């Protein structure tokens, strides 16, 4: 048995060594490392895929890693990128504060870092920070929510993870609009930590406590979908629900009439911009843009849902 195992292992080793040979040629091309929070979430997947595709198109080698929103894991991945002599890192980071030291270390090692989707608490280290306008998007969605509610009634809010800056910016954006209508009354606000399952449970509980809830505004699409499922199982149809992000599932739900609206974050556009700027920086020494770039979100409703697919406008 031992002998067979050894034979098997040496076969695998030999195969891998041959592969290594054919990869040698690849190592002459520069490496771009794309680090995103996770690859099992459609938003981050679209973001990673768009960046990787653009970088390949421009003739780079690409590696995609995921830090699972764990700042320490992100730190290790940045180390790995430094060790691999990456030319640039495209990073959707794991926390505005906890990311600064990793970005500084990569920059010191001569790697150009481009932040996408979320900012960090420091300027002048990264070459660019390209983010979507969460405040403007939140206001767009809130205005649509007001139209759906006809400006009055009881509503509930599902908040994102409290430690996430975007959760705070979005709820502030919502209330900048909603609080102007005195007949709109927020009867309950709960954090569902961006999670669909948690939003489902929280919504069921909120419906028990407040039977008159006539609308739900959620900090992201997965929570909105969780709320929609809860309302459906409670037999409450035609309660307007809004989300945020513009995920494919949410856009399908908008087309089916289960969700009222969402704000689409131009994730694909942002990824492409970041890679293009990285390319220009590596070739000319300048991105040609200011460090902080804020890209507006777009409102998606039933009337224009067909124009959007996978975090980009296709028509």
């Amino acid at each position, binding site marked *: 048995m031992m002998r067979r195992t050894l034979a098997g292992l040496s076969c695998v080793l030999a195969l891998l060594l041959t592969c290594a040979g054919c990869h040698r040629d690849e190592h002459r091309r520069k490496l771009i490392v794309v680090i995103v929070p996770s690859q099992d979430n459609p938003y981050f997947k679209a973001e990673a895929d768009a960046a990787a595709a653009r970088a390949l198109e421009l003739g780079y080698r690409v590696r995609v890693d995921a830090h699972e929103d764990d700042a*320490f894991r992100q730190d290790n991945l940045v180390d790995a990128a430094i*060790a691999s002599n990456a030319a640039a890192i495209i990073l959707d980071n794991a926390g505005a504060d906890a990311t600064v*030291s990793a970005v500084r270390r990569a920059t010191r090692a001569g790697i150009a870092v481009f932040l996408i989707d979320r900012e960090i608490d420091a300027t002048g280290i990264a070459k660019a920070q390209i983010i979507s306008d969460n405040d403007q998007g939140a206001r767009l969605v809130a205005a649509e929510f007001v139209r759906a509610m006809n400006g009055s009634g009881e509503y509930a809010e599902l908040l994102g993870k409290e430690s996430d800056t975007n959760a705070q910016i979005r709820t502030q954006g919502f209330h900048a609009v909603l609080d102007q209508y005195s007949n709109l009354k927020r009867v309950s606000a709960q954090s569902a930590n961006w999670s669909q399952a948690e939003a489902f449970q929280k919504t069921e509980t909120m419906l028990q406590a407040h039977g008159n809830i006539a609308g739900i505004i959620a900090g992201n699409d997965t929570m909105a979908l969780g709320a929609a499922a809860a309302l459906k199982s409670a037999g409450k149809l035609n309660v307007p629900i809004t989300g945020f992000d513009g995920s494919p599932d949410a856009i399908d739900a908008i087309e089916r009439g289960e969700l009222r609206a969402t704000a689409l974050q131009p994730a694909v556009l942002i990824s492409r911009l970041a890679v293009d700027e990285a390319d220009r920086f590596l070739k000319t020494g300048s991105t040609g843009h200011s460090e902080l770039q804020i890209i507006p979100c777009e409102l998606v409703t039933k009337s224009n849902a067909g124009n959007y697919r996978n975090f980009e406008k296709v028509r």
Partner: protein
Amino acid sequence: MSTETPSQPRANRFGVASARLILLLLRARAILVLLLLLILFSALAPEFLTANNLSILTKHVAITALLAVGMTFVILTGGIDLSVGSIAGLGGMVAGYLLTQGLSFDGVTHFPPVAIVILLTICACLLVGALNGWLVAKAGVAPFIATLGTLYIARGAALLISNGKTFPNLGGTASRGNTGFPAFGQSFLLHVPTPVWMMVALFAVAWVVATKTPLGRHVYAIGGNERAARLAGIRVAQVKLATYVFSAFCAALVGLIIAAQLEAAHPATGESFELNAIAAVVLGGTSLMGGRGSVTGSLIGAFVIGVLADGLVMLGVSEFWQVVIKGVVIVVAVGLDQLQTRLEVRILPYLTTVRTKEGHS
């Protein structure tokens, strides 16, 4: 020996020899796997075998290794410590709080210097370790349950300290006299990262304790047969308490290192670290039933896990496959452990000389 096995035919000698060889290979499996991984990754990723990367790699390994060394003693007594990840998270938050919020006496906020911050953090973590030890050794709670409880308690406490927020900018401020904390995780001594030195020092101490001191022998004895150990006059409760406190000390170091590296403390830091530590210990050949294993094995196990993690990232293997591969390695390691135990039992009569040398089996 001939009196013990009169019925064994001569032809079996070859079988015994090959069984011995297999057993030797099985015992050395962790180091064999490590060598195989090193060769593989060096061949596949040209940047893998550079001084720079090996330094980074060892720094990453140090985190798992520190936890694994502490965990080894707990597992050797037949226990388990699920709370180490949470204790590391708590440690980071305590340090973060002391550095950024300070301590208030009579309405005046004092900012303790970094050395005091580190000491207080370690003390806080040792308290959790002592709670673990007390629950297991004195209150008689099963280790799995006791440390599962403290896992939640410590994580909850970490979240409470900051209300779930991150403590940023742990670099300190000169006017408060508390700068220099990041050096705990980021500095170098003779071109080797400080965390690696900590790993080396801690490993050396643990090795000496495990192999050269009565305390070490007591740990093995308790894991081998707790009743017998008690009857032999070993103070079981104190020894067990010591193992949990030591494990918490290792976790405190990890929490401090991570907070120093990130220059920020996040309450979720260290989630599932306990699983990596347990995996490293098991990979290193320590039996979860207690009584059999070594600190050296755990160190090698930590290297296997660290090399695997970093190597797969450098190769650009998809993260989903990374998870699967890690799982396969652990399952295979435990399977081999079972095989080793069974083989040892079967050829026990032939191995009396080897066994007396090993001592702890």
